[in-house]
């Protein structure tokens, strides 16, 4: 295994593109090193991107925030403006692992690890996050929901890497939230995750909503039917129940060591409803 720590995106991309065997990007390393230690992967090259300044910084852009793909969770949580605008996203990132993990783990890494259960991903999908990708053929930008295509699999081509994530400007009267279910209070992989972002009009009617679920299918899901259950309503109990039903209906989970299929389907609805309630309170407060 070779270790490189380039200082520019171009160098990183050419290293990744030029690698003969398996090449991996190292940001926080909290998934990569676990896989290395367990001999699950044996990369020929590891490219540490933390010396690339733009990948380590958060910048305000058009009322939104561009978050370097290697910004650690702890750094994101300490950014008061991002937290005020997108509390659901920041809380979701904060749920990834322990305090120690937060010192290293990044949104970019959480996304590119490709886990259907990644905590930050439903929240970033709900928030309408756009992902910037650099590669041998230049840069491109895609919605967050288009990155993960299967467990451990992403839509990134060889030589490509995520450089930043863009959280758009927060509309007025909107709020977001993310909740996950784990058996303990910390340190577990989500058994179900639910991210909700919604916007109200002045009369309190929901005008826009995005609902995303994690750990209930092979990829995180953006559930249009769940959003539709909210849009046009005042988010009364009936709308919330419709949301829960739509969220449960969208699930296509498996039985595994972390939970049963039935459990995931039921709890997805519960969490979507609870997350929507929090998002609603936040929207009313904005």
């Amino acid at each position, binding site marked *: 295994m070779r270790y490189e720590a380039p200082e520019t995106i171009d160098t990183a991309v050419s290293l990744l593109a030029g690698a003969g065997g398996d090449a991996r990007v190292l940001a926080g390393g909290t998934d990569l090193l676990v896989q290395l230690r367990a001999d699950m992967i044996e990369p020929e090259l590891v490219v540490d991107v933390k010396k690339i300044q733009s990948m380590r910084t958060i910048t305000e852009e058009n009322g939104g925030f561009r978050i370097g793909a290697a910004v650690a969770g702890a750094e994101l949580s300490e950014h008061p403006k991002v937290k005020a605008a997108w509390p659901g996203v920041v809380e979701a990132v904060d749920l990834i692992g322990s305090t120690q993990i937060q010192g290293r783990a990044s949104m970019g890494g959480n996304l590119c690890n490709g886990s259907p259960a990644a905590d930050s991903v439903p929240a970033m999908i709900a928030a309408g996050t756009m992902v910037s990708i650099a590669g041998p053929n230049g840069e491109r930008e895609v919605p967050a929901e288009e990155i993960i295509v299967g467990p451990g699999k992403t839509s990134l081509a060889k030589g490509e890497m995520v450089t930043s994530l863009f959280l758009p400007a927060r509309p007025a009267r909107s709020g977001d939230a993310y909740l996950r*279910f784990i058996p*303990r*209070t910390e*340190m*577990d992989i989500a058994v179900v995750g639910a991210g909700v972002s919604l916007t109200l009009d002045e009369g309190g009617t929901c005008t826009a909503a995005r609902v995303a679920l994690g750990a209930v299918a092979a990829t995180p899901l953006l559930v249009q039917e769940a959003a539709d259950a909210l849009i046009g309503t005042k988010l009364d109990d009936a709308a919330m129940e419709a949301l829960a039903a739509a969220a449960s209906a969208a699930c296509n989970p498996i039985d595994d*060591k972390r*939970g*049963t299929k039935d459990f995931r389907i039921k709890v997805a609805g519960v969490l979507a409803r609870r997350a929507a309630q929090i998002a609603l309170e936040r929207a009313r407060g904005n």
Partner: protein
Amino acid sequence: MSQALRTDDMDQDLRVVGTRPVRPDGVDKVTGRAMFGADYSLPGMLVGRVLRSPHAHAIIKSIDTSKAEALPGVKAVVTRDDFQEMPSEFIPAGEMLINYRDVVRNVMAREKALYDGHAVAAVAATSVSVAKKALKLIKVDYEVLPHVIDPSEAMKPDAPVLHDHIFTDGVEPKPEKPSNVAKRVEFGMGDVEAGFASADVVVERSFKTQPVHQGYIEPHACVASVSADGQAELWCSTQGHYVVRANCARLLGMDISKIRVTASEIGGGFGGKTVVYLEPVALALSRKACHPVKMVMSREEVFRASGPTSGADIWVKMGATKDGKIVAAQTDLKYQAGAFPGSPVQPGAMCAFAPYDVENVLAVGYDVVTNRPKVAAYRAPGGPISEYAVESVVDELARKLEIDPVDFRLQNAAQQGTRAAYGPKFGPVGLVQTLEAVKNHEHYKAPLGPNQGRGVASGFWFNIGGETSVEINLSEDGTATLMSGTPDIGGSRASLAMMAAEELCIDLEKVRPLIADTSSLGYNFLTGGSRVTFSAGLATVEAAREIVKELCARAAKIWEIPEDAVEWEKGYVRPAGENAGNFEPLSVADIAKVAGKTGGPIAGYARINAQGAAPSFGTHLVDVEVDPETGRAWVTRYTVVQDAGKAIHPSYVEGQYQGGAVQGIGWAFNEEYIYDDKGCLENPGFLDYRIPVASDVPMIDTVIVEVPNPRHPYGVRGVGETPIVPPMGAIANAVSAATGIRFTELPMSPPKVLKALEEHRANGGGD
């Protein structure tokens, strides 16, 4: 915080015992200086690694190590061929028994691999990367066999049989065919049929528990160095270095005296470090390579190949009269032993009904081999499983009789003179006092919120004594070195030093306690059975008193008066009788200073087989809350009450109570071994084997009851194991109270709880 409830005035003017000093090994442990198993290294040391079976059950047709041996940097490879066949012979290991025939096979698979993770070969190499490469070059030809994990499945006539030589012991006539049932045990008294016939209320339930791992944070680790003439040094993390020495000598055909074992600091054991895994392999590799070899298990190896305790299928039936007297109690216990016989079903059967005074009792246990790692002791081995089931049934009986569950237990509680179903009559025991303390505790009366429930359960553990050596050497300046041979897991150096300081009437700081290596002190059985503070404490007191006696003799010599003309009082030898007042009293230091002139070094050396260990009863009180929509349950409040006999260092007694309770919380809610359909462990890591984290639990309140053990100079009983016995029953009873549903399977994980809640609601049960 803790309260202490004392039932007598056995305390003379204790100066040190019962106080809370800083432990002598503390500073090393807060500064990183303390040396644990993996912290030792030697010049020229090699890395040892183990190749493990990926199959749950397979014949090992051949092992080809030639390519691995040819790899540069590989210095030794060992397989089954490097370990001699052992006869079938049972020896005690903690409160369990082991058989050398099986131990050698568990250390290195022989005819068959019997579980996922079973050691098949090992290498010693110059680096980790070379060792890993070498493992990949070892070719093992397996013939995969059908496997069985569940104990009831393993007992079926058509189940895959693990061992052709097992014909159930304890059954007459001897069965004609081999099976997975290694042994049937039975304990009882009276006539249960007649007892049930006289009962007004009978409750009968079946329960199931999953294997749980001890979960110590420090993986198994050792460094072995064998010289060309066969003299061996071994440093390892173990609960019993003398036992390691004996087992290694036996397995490797070495003289016991040729092996010196030094116990490192031990990063938790809970029974799981009472057996050998790596140590004989490291010695074999070192002997072959003529280099020191270090071996450290990965966390995955710890889960796949060490511990755990049994999973079990349990059936319990109990009957009581309408005025609340338990008249009959019966249980069938099927405990997984793992790959080799030796589950803790016997102690499980013995203690199942121990907290209760019942005339008619029958407990039958089955020791069942399955394709899981051989179980190891885990804190009160066997007790938590059977007592969980019994305490659930006791709770249900109390509810049916509409008697307060504490009152119901008080009415039936074992007391001094009660005959236990396993034989003896209890001496003074503290169960009643723990129940009364619970009843009077503010927690018992505190209001509960919505979706909350309260549960209570009692628990029992025998506690043991056993072979123990302690030596105290008095230095020329009057300070003392205390050598014990029972590895200190939870603060025993502190409690032993405190007892020595108390006896010698010197400051605690003047006593330096050490854990001696196996060549520097006589034999010690292992740290287990809650025996150390009792047994080594007894030996410490005996050794200290030998020193006091010698101090008196030396003073008499100095004064040139008869030995019986002096007396020992509060750290001084004084002339007594007709000589009283004729000489200035001599302190310990005064006498020590001139020891060279009065007969040489002063020391006390106690070598005992400690008798008179006394059981400890505890009662736990717990509140839980259940999320009705997700099935997640958690503990909101917890109080442990337990009889310590005497708390030498109350902080570390409380620590045992608190730690046991939290381990129990894990056992109750989340911990379990999960296997795939091939019999491979799916959760061999702390990510998915979910032990409680700090945010999962509240503060754990403690009440130390002290009903002294008359067979110990300070009244010590031993406290380490009982705290793991009551939690599962108490928590299950609390969850039942919160939901109106009786849960009969552990762990009560959210999917199970939610499913039960939904079925309950569908059947018209209230929220």
